[in-house]
């Protein structure tokens, strides 16, 4: 497809999902497009009125639209079309709550951008309950002018928390791997983007596979596996400086890195030259290595419990891949914790430590499930045939994972109750292995 056609197709897709306005505003950012495929049956009607602008320091960014898209992407809101708005107030005092109630909205968001003497911009958004008209709430965020999108996401986080009661995770980032070209000659890229797919930046590019990205707890580094030396190597890379350190390039497999909750260690998979995969712990400052599992089966895909007291990992020591739990600093044998089905792998722990997301084989399809760690109940969340790599949002409300759509790898999100589903499509190539980053300062 030539670039003009591709652009046309992009525009058509955007138009069909109601984001037509954005095409003119943010085409350079729109490499991933979000579509809600299933929302709550009863979304909250909300009107997000265009904000008072701060020309020219706002760079033309439609902040209200970023906020609107964030809230819509949660699947919990239904935003009123701008063309249906009767007037466009920019502060709570100008909002006639009763009039908006007549238009069948529960909440009205109005706002403005306030340029500050030091060059920063304060984003202010008032939330008015149209049903009561009482106690308006104001969300505020001060950001450098160049970083206005961040201010919009933060305001969306605050509005979401005020209405839903759960901290929003819009001001977060995701990392993912993109693959272009046809086998056997493919090009691999590691990206970081805002949680809505905007602000995409290349972290690393290679003609050989890149896989298994993992965030440091402070969001400053990514650990990943690269085959750029034709054998596997685990790197850590600082995002701000692009400084890249090979932390494990041992004989055999160097794979599946994850950071410890204190950010000082990596759990990773090594095989040595005899090919027996086990999980190890690597101290990043001393390079000291300690072995955590010892079994002839494949032990891999470790992840820490949020309090750092235990590891969950995949092992096929019982004959099929299942998830095990290992208490750190204890001599107990790892305990198997998955029992339903013949394939349970790639565990990830929810931020509160109460749930496990995993890849499970059900009815011949690989799907994303969550398992309640207290009672073992398994809930299958996704509906595809070949899905993988679940990763929790830092607020624990959503999961991002990789699925397939007409043979292409796409990113998908799902709420932990399975009700709300969305798809993030890429312009070109295949996207996979999404990992949701931590809350940002």
């Amino acid at each position, binding site marked *: 497809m030539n670039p003009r056609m591709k652009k046309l197709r992009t525009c058509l897709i955007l138009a069909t999902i109601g984001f037509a306005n954005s095409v003119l505003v943010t085409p350079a950012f729109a490499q991933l497009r979000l579509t809600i495929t299933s929302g709550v049956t009863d979304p909250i009607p909300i009107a997000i009125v265009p904000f008072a602008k701060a020309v020219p320091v706002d760079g033309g960014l439609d902040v209200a639209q970023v906020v609107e898209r964030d809230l819509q992407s949660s699947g919990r809101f239904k935003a009123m079309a701008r063309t249906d708005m009767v007037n466009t107030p920019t502060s709570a005092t100008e909002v006639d709550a009763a009039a908006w109630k007549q238009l069948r909205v529960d909440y009205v968001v109005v706002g403005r951008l306030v340029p500050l003497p030091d060059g920063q911009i304060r984003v202010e958004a008032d939330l008015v309950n149209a049903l009561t008209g009482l106690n308006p709430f104001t969300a505020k965020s001060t950001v450098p002018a160049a970083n206005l999108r961040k201010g919009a996401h933060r305001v969306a986080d605050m509005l979401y928390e005020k209405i839903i009661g759960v901290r929003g995770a819009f001001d977060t980032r995701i990392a993912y791997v993109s693959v272009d070209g*046809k*086998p056997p000659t493919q090009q691999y890229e590691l990206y970081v983007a805002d949680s809505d797919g905007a602000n995409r930046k290349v972290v690393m590019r290679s003609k050989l596979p890149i*896989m298994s990205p993992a965030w440091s707890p402070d969001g400053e580094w990514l650990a990943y596996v690269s085959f750029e030396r034709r054998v596997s190597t685990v790197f850590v890379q600082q995002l701000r400086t692009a400084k890249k350190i090979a932390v494990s390039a041992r004989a055999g497999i160097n794979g599946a890195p994850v950071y410890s909750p204190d950010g000082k260690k990596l759990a990773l998979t090594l095989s040595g*030259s005899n090919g027996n995969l086990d999980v190890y712990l690597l101290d990043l400052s001393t390079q000291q290595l300690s072995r955590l599992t010892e079994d*002839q*089966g494949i032990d891999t895909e470790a992840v820490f419990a949020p309090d750092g007291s235990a590891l969950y990992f*995949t092992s096929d020591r019982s004959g099929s891949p299942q998830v095990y739990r290992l208490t750190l600093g204890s001599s107990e044998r790892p305990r198997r914790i998955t029992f339903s089905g013949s394939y349970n792998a*790639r565990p990830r722990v929810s931020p509160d430590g109460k749930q496990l997301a995993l890849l499970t084989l059900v009815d011949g399809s690989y799907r994303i499930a969550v398992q309640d760690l207290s009672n073992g109940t398994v809930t299958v969340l996704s509906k595809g045939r070949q899905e993988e790599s679940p990763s929790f949002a830092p607020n624990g409300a959503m999961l991002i994972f990789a699925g397939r759509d007409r043979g292409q790898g796409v990113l998908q999100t799902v709420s932990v109750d399975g009700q709300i589903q969305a798809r993030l499509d890429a312009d070109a190539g295949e996207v996979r292995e999404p990992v949701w980053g931590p809350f940002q300062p």
Partner: protein
Amino acid sequence: MIKGVHMKKFVSIALVLGSIVLLASCGTKPEEQPPPPPAQTTDTSAADTPSATDETATQGPSGELLSKRIVYFDYDSAEIRADSQSVVAAHARYLATAPAQKVRLEGHADERGSREYNIGLGERRGQSVRRALLLQGVAEVQLTTVSYGEERPAVAGSDEQAYAANRRVEIVYLK
């Protein structure tokens, strides 16, 4: 339960060893070996020249079996398929007589399931070819393994044919 699994593993290793011994015993009469699978060579023409753009690789020896560099496997299995045993045996014979020649065994899996677990499955396959070569007189220093899991498919596609073509070990002759 654990015991049973180890037993199962032992049995499957014994089976592999047994078939290697069988092969080795008929190794002096290569004309009696079964013909290579015709279907695979047509489906995977791109993959029949592994690592074509690999600057660390060299063309390596030629010959009916030696020019075949791909060993195929069944689903969820690391046992060298019967139709690939003659290829492994031919490379073993060649490498045993060329002790300075090194090869890299690149293990691969089909795209189903978890990526890092598939790295493990690819490694198992690479190790299975490595063990077969060692048992047939190749020296340890001649062999390295790498697993690409499902990351470097030989062919695109999500059907049985593509899966079968992608479950493989590529024998790469190094410079």
